[in-house]
């Protein structure tokens, strides 16, 4: 008897706590103060709305959940869709087989156009053929620069990862770097590997690759620290995503290293770091532009028969450098989550 009342009150306590927490969280959502309102006020570009008939476009990417980069691609695509009177259907799966099913899903929905990333082109070959035989125009974006024409896509918007890496390597030469470590946060990812290979190709100093566990920030931090301790001659740390650059900055402090940090891709925290000088520069492939152009190009094709790049050449969205000289102009867009 005694014990049951004891354990009941013990059991109820956390329940009450959860309810209280939920209430507080709800109160938080409805609050008008803080950063949320500011984000809403300024989010995205707005350029009126087209009066063309409503159409539907599917954007199918290989995004892994929770990646800040793809969030920006999607925002660009949404901005173009809003302007062009397009209903945007977004779906994503990092597994190539699943991504191919999602493209098939779009075909079944009889969409007016498909924009797709080609991280694993071979896996998407068949389904893209099906889209073409269903007379649905398909454009490529982000990854697949060497394969989009082979697969018969209309046009392509993106950055050549190798070219971007090469550009960064040249920049390192100009900065007078001697030894760089290129940090890969997802072992086996082709795009990331190509970036580091590009750096290695043009950088006249030594380039070493370091694999880290990207889903666990404390271990990313320790591993970069370990590398800097093991090899004191490293004078540049190159990361392949903005959040990892911020972590690398902390590793430098831990290891007491004087090395500098450069990165691929941007976000709002990173622009602050470039302003402060803790990160030297970022290579931006303009993900917003990739999403925007891919969707907008399908509108242009449907309503005016246009091909960007004439159907022959890809449209390059990067590499664009962001450093101390131009960071102010970029920072306000990054704060909106669109750069």
């Amino acid at each position, binding site marked *: 008897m005694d014990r049951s009342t004891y354990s009941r009150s013990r*059991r109820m306590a956390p329940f009450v*706590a959860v309810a209280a927490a939920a209430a507080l*969280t709800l109160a938080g959502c409805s609050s008008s103060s803080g950063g949320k309102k500011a984000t*809403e006020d300024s989010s995205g570009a707005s350029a009126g709305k087209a009066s063309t008939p409503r159409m539907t476009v599917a954007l199918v990417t290989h995004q892994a959940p929770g990646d800040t980069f793809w969030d920006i691609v999607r925002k660009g695509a949404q901005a173009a869709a809003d302007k062009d009177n397009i209903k945007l259907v977004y779906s994503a799966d990092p597994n190539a087989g699943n991504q191919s099913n999602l493209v098939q899903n779009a075909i079944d929905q009889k969409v007016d156009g498909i924009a797709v990333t080609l991280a694993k082109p071979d896996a998407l070959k068949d389904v893209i053929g099906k889209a073409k035989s269903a007379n649905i125009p398909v454009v490529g974006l982000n990854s697949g620069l060497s394969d989009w024409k082979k697969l018969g896509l209309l046009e392509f918007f993106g950055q050549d990862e190798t070219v971007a890496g090469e550009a960064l390597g040249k920049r390192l030469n100009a900065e007078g770097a001697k030894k760089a470590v290129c940090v890969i946060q997802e072992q086996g990812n082709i795009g990331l590997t190509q970036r580091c290979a590009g750096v290695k190709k043009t950088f006249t100093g030594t380039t070493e690759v370091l694999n880290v566990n990207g889903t*666990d920030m404390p271990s990313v931090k320790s591993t970069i620290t*370990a*590398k800097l*301790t*093991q090899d004191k001659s490293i004078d540049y740390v190159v990361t392949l995503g903005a959040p990892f650059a911020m972590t690398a900055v902390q590793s430098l402090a831990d290891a007491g290293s004087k090395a500098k940090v450069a990165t691929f891709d941007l976000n709002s925290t990173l622009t602050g770091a470039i302003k402060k000088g803790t990160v030297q520069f970022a290579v931006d492939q303009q993900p917003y532009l990739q999403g925007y152009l891919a969707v907008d190009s399908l509108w242009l094709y449907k309503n005016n028969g246009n091909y960007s790049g004439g159907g022959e050449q890809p449209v390059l969205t990067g590499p664009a450098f962001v450093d101390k000289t131009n960071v102010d102009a970029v920072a306000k867009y990054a704060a909106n989550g669109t750069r």
Partner: protein
Amino acid sequence: MSMTQHAEPAVTSPPAPGPKETDGRTAERPLALRLLARPEVGVFLGAAAVYVFFLIAAPPVREGAAMANILYSSSTIGIMALPVALLMIGGEFDLSAGVAVITSALTASMLSYQLTMNVWVGVVVALLVSLGIGFLNGWMVVKTGLPSFLITLGSFLILQGVNLAVTKLVTGNVATDDISNMDGFGQAKKIFAASFDIGGVDVKITIFYWLVFAAIASWVLLRTKYGNWIFAVGGNKDSARAVGVPVAFTKISLFMLVGLGAWFVGMHQLFTFNTVQSGEGVGQELIYISAAVIGGCLLTGGAGSAIGPVFGAFMFGMVQQGIVYAGWNPDWFKAFLGVMLLGAVLINLWVQRTATRR
């Protein structure tokens, strides 16, 4: 040496009223053999072997700074491996532990930022949310009688989705905003993410927490009634209930303990990195579970220790960072990790078999 202190009472006082009488606890054996038979001694030898190996293979490991870094890496795994191990001794396990860390960090960060409140408000609410998740996991396991694998696989997926969707809904992005300039941040950073200069070496506070928590967990497990309950519910739930052990309370509280650990590590991450990415944490649960298993906790429950997972986590940190200190080809990183861990587990197993053989 602290290990023998913990091991000895364990040998002389069987923890639970009859969960198991197997691992060489018979009185006539020599002390050395009896010690060797304890799972944490096996893992200690494994960890020592890995340590010596890297001491030889990777010169930087010999320096204090490298050791501090390795211990830091081990501590963020180890703090979670402790409650995960206790839960496992209690016969259950939790697949949602990895993403729960991120849930906690996201809650604290977004709540304080959105309401523009002192970050401590977020920290406290995150604690309640984390304990609540643990409570729900435990409550469902106890009420339904389903395997915790299924229940927590469900909560793993739910949390993964909620982390992403709510973050996107609230912040408009998939990562939280920087809260480092808000009130209370400095204070909280001192508590959850401070570092000290000890003899010119930068030592992170999580290392101390890890060891203190391990000592507390060991004491609870070996010297308290609650510790006996844990062994009892993990060994045989029905006979435990028959002798008056509050099975539901014990199991639910163990899940809540995992929530507490997730909160702590989540706060450390938030106050170290200022922002949190909502997609992180996936896969970490397996590392916590591995550290506990290497540390001698049985997947079937009823056996294990709190000190074993400390060495299990150390082994993970040591191998993960040691490979980098050794400057080996990074393509082999994961393979090295796997081979070293398997090797360590085999040493562990061999030591136990040899010691318990008659």
